[in-house]
């Protein structure tokens, strides 16, 4: 994981970065786990305004990967899977990571089309622009492009 230097993002926080056909999701955090939580929020914000999603149901997610970048892709893809099969949207995430093993909790509620106005479905997290790194200021960044 290389160190990086950028401006000073809000930490913790998330943002989208531009891609013509798809969308880049990026999370920042004081810990690796927090950056993953923020990246997940960035992905949910591709679909809906997460402030409309109430915290009523909780799903536990576990992932393991050869490195932290594949772990990020696995985490986001696990969320896509849970949303698709349970017909849920999420607005809150908690993540702890140790030795490329992730324990996560996603909280949200069943999709309500009228209230949530979900736009494009995320088909999956790609390996494009996939990056997990630590800044010289000691905060974490986790990003990739998601296919919509």
């Amino acid at each position, binding site marked *: 994981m290389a160190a990086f230097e950028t401006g000073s993002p809000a930490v913790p926080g998330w943002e989208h970065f531009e891609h013509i056909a798809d969308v880049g999701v990026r999370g920042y955090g004081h810990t690796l786990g927090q950056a993953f939580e923020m990246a997940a929020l960035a992905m949910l914000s591709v679909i809906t305004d997460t402030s409309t999603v109430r915290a009523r149901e909780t799903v536990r997610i576990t992932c393991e990967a050869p490195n932290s970048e*594949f772990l990020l892709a696995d985490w986001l893809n696990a969320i896509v899977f849970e949303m698709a099969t349970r017909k849920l949207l999420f607005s809150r995430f908690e993540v702890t990571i140790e030795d490329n093993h992730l324990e996560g909790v996603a909280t949200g509620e069943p999709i309500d089309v009228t209230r949530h106005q979900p*736009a494009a479905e995320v088909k*999956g997290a790609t390996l494009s622009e996939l990056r997990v790194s630590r800044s010289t200021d000691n905060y974490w960044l986790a990003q990739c492009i998601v296919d919509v």
Partner: protein
Amino acid sequence: MDINNFSRISETCWRIEPSGKMRVPALIHASESLLCDMDDKVREQLVNVTTLPGIVGAAHAMPDAHWGYGFPIGGVAAFDADQGGVISAGGVGFDISCGVRTHLTGLPLAEFEARRRPLTEALFRNIPAGIGSRGDIHLDQQGMEEMLAGGAAWALSEGYGETADLEFIEDNGCATAARPACVSRRARQRQQHEMGTLGSGNHYLEIQEITAIHDQEAAGVFGLVRGECVVTIHCGSRGLGHQIGTEFLRDMAVSAGDYDIALPDRELACAPVISETGQNYIGAMRSAINCALANRQIIGHLMRNVFRRFWPGLELPLLFDVSHNTCKPERHNVNGKEKLLYVHRKGATRAFGPGHDSIPRKYRATGQPVLIGGSMGTESWVLAGMDSSEKTAFSSACHGAGRSMSRNQARKRWQGRQVVEHLAGRGITVRSPSMRGVAEEAPGAYKDVSEVVMASERAGLARRVARLRPVICIKG
């Protein structure tokens, strides 16, 4: 994109000579203005494709090419398994076998004008669209197995559609040698309740008026008459294809080193065709193709049921059903010799010229119908395959308009309701569960599809037969 990076071979062909790790040249087929507007990433991604083992001829980009991930969208590349050629999950994409099907109505626009509102509502109610929607079909284990092996033929055996449909679907509605055993439990789980659903994003069901005929003879053979309407469906393999894409992309990226493949971009994840991973992916991908073909067959059936409430007994024959995210084994002429190649088309349409034995007999002398989707406010096209397409780009053509603006930019610029009202003023009814989705799909966020099809024709990829304009659009 800087055109000085290319040598111009013809009015519509731009070439990058092999250098460094490139095994073959990279060719972009486009007009000068389309090329100038393309992101430089298209060139970069196409050059990366040329470095993959076993690539044959050249890596091609279609006139609607844009920045994808791994392969550019609009990328075409063929690989020879005997020369260590690869199959790439990144070269097919997440929405395996996403494609377009068009049915003829034989009815003039006035028939739709008279029933615009109730017909729109009935279609919207009966064709599940958007995130979170579920179909009425719930597959058990055996049903899933049969669907994955049988494609549209399975759907037909379940009562969806008509026997005559199969002949007018690519590969007669079934990808042979699919291996459902290679499809994971999670992929099946995602599909269990999603058969017969449109999905979201740029997927749609549209009633379109034929506004211009450019090739009378071909239009006659295809059954296209100016002033009449057709119904076009654009969707893919839904959750099952997305999950297969996700899983194999990761497997191939992790295992590339085992096969001594140096990936210039992880998203180009691939494996030799002759390898366990490669064969497993081919088996799973073909199952996903069958899922997409079955899905469009079911939606076609649901559409017919709605139409027949308004016009009892209406036939609605299928013009054609063709995919634009696939990898298929095909025979192509390479340096005077016929070879079996694995042709990847990611956001590109197969476009066989006249005489090809894969084309339905009815169209054989004309060339394969090539269905091109535009945005909901502009136009779509029916093209026909040309002889020259084989030599130019392994019988491939463009697939759509392509975005010119990101979803975030589009949402900042337009509001869904405004877009709907503006289009209503132009005689286009849009119905969607999500106004945010409509804003992101605003026509202004797409390139001019007419320039794309014109370039396709000039490049000898596919010729223009008919122009279509949207009348009613059910948006996912």
